[in-house]
């Protein structure tokens, strides 16, 4: 419950790749389960998939949900300092679903 909140913020983004074109997938389309009174995507639930250990299972899940894409890239997003430099956003591809 927000025991430790520092200036950094991290999350996950998932891209679908088709014909060399990369599309950012709406996390609400990836995790469609809704909650009452809040948006679980804003609870950063998607960041769980950043663990390399979950990669194979999550790739299977993505291929089933988005068969129109050839590949997927799971990307870690990091804001080093939300207060002083909110626009600075770093990206690192954690794994690619071939």
């Amino acid at each position: 419950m927000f025991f430790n909140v520092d200036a950094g913020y991290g999350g996950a983004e998932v891209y679908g790749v088709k014909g060399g074109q990369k599309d950012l997938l709406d996390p609400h389309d990836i995790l469609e389960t809704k909650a009452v009174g809040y948006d679980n995507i804003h609870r950063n639930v998607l960041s769980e998939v950043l663990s390399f250990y979950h990669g194979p299972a999550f790739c299977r899940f993505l291929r089933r949900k988005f068969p129109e894409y050839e590949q997927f890239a799971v990307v870690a997003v990091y804001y080093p300092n939300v207060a002083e430099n909110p626009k600075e956003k770093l990206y690192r591809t954690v794994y690619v679903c071939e």
Partner: protein
Amino acid sequence: MTLKWWDRIFWELRPSIGLSFFRIFVALTIGLHVILSFFYLDDNYLSIAFKIINLSFFTPGVIEFVQKSPDGVVYFFVGFFCVTWFLFLIGLFSQLSCILLTACCYYFYALNAFHIGTLSWDILLVTLFLMCVTPYHGDYFSVDGLRKGGTDSYKRQRPFFLQRLLQIQIAATYFFTALHKITGSGNWLTDNPMYYLMNYPPEGVVKHFVFREFFATRPELCYVIGLTIVVCEILLPFLLFIPKTRLAAIGLGIFFHVVLVSTFHVPTIFFFLFPPQLMLFINPNEIIRWIEVKRARYQSQGQAQIIYDGHCHFCLASIHILQTMDLFGSLRPVDYHSVEDVKTLHPNLTKELCHSQLYLIEPDGALSGGFFIFRRICFKVPMLYLFVLFFYFPGASLVGPWVYRWVARNRYLFHRAKVCRDNACFR
């Protein structure tokens, strides 16, 4: 001396009405948390789902066993969950349904912790586990309560320990949340978490509320707010247990949760469970005193009279149920057989009319009969409040009387009273 203190805190007999009311909120919170995840079974629980297991909550053996579930077993548990949840909500076999519901919750948690497995879910499971210990929560606002009956069932006395444990649970949650924020890895004293939260990117946990940008540019104010939150969380448990500060503490706690839910994306439990759990600090004897005052007021200012057929056991049973539901004593049942001339009750009434259906005479003399009495009394009887939606649903005034007439005509079928063998109930 120690034993007396212990007895007073945990074993003193007090009315269980607060606990019964709380059961409804526990059921609603569980339902809102889990049932929504059933709409996407293939995403969440079936063999093709993306699953995350919680090995810090379950032993590997349990996880391994549950993960072997074929899809048929998952479907079975979905159905079983829905049934036990509904039984728990309406308070039918309250303790058994609570135990089975808890087992289902653990099953789905072990199957996939991805969506439901938050820290607040763990807190909710503790609450649910405590509720399994006794059937006290089924004493009132429940079908169990109606089955047992009794006009004073709302003040049934029970050992207070369960309500006390639930009080301790929420008090400890506040206290240790605050403690965790200011010790160990917590940084609420050494840094400015509220300031960072206000500056989180749009995809973050903070909602877009009116003053967010104002706070986002004022780090000193954010720090003070952060400290105030921590101080409130530390003090709240003590203020809740001190009788003189209790009401203010409950108000403060509810205000805290309303602000939290309006400004942050926090799980359902913060709105649906914690505020009702704070209400458990209200002494049930005070609640009963408040109810008694309302009952006395109805008795002095006039109750509505329900005219029924005392020779019909189905009608008698229905009247007993209605009396049990009638928390504020707003209704006075009158067997029309006990009245020499029913016109003394209301000039429009006849014995034939009274025999055909129930009638309601309100203190101002307004007369209604059959289905339409439920439309009137659903505003007076707390256990019928939810049925307002049902009784006033578009078309209910057409379907309702038809259903009522059918039940009234066939009421002799609904019980085995000797009197009905002579067709005394039949119109």
